[in-house]
């Protein structure tokens, strides 16, 4: 079953929503904690504003989650598009390692020694689809062998 980029977007949209809900919870907990410590509303407000301005605490965590999700969706999408040109072909494809990586994960190193059709690679996991130890950060690609 080919991966559709719309499905990737739906999953990432769900992750964004989850990150936002976690922010709501975290801020609620932070406020309660400060109240228990006897901190005034005015001071709580100032601290929250400072945290947001400087990307600290819950806000920093939220920002990190958003940026991570963008890394995942854009990486997966580009990889899906670059590899799916071979869908439906019987070409013998080799796994080209990421030329910019200093080191490669064991799965990519193993895959780089194999030649398979698109369907066979799909069963194992296409580059960047998260089936290797380097996960969705994989920037290897498939090319026609020979």
């Amino acid at each position: 079953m080919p991966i559709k980029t719309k499905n990737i977007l739906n999953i990432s949209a769900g992750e964004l929503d989850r990150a936002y809900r976690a922010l709501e919870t975290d801020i609620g907990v932070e406020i309660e904690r400060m109240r228990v410590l006897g901190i005034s509303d005015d001071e709580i407000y100032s601290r929250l504003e400072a945290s947001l301005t400087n990307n600290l605490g819950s806000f920093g965590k939220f920002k990190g989650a958003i940026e991570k999700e963008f890394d995942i969706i854009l990486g997966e999408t580009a990889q899906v598009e670059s590899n799916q040109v071979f869908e439906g072909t019987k070409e013998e494809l080799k796994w080209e390692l990421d030329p910019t990586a200093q080191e490669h994960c064991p799965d990519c190193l193993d895959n780089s020694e194999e030649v398979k059709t698109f369907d066979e690679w799909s069963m194992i996991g296409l580059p960047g689809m998260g089936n290797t130890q380097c996960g969705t950060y994989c920037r290897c690609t498939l090319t026609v062998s020979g």
Partner: protein
Amino acid sequence: MNRERHVRFVEELGDLQDKQGKRVSRMLSRALLKIIRGMERKPSKIVKVLRVLRRKIMKEAVIEMAKAQLKAKKLGKELGEEKLADKD
């Protein structure tokens, strides 16, 4: 496909991820700051308002994500087409 082309793809993708992720997180931070500053220094209201505005804020973020995804799609498609052309 030559090595340089693959390098270019990885670099352009990394650049896109970095720029778009930061752009949208900044956009969300500005929206949150606006909410917090509109709370007249009353923390009790913040969580409630965040909850009420969740759908609106996240809708904007998903729209931006979809636009960025189109750019990533283009990068991947161009590489894919070149890989196919190399076959011939």
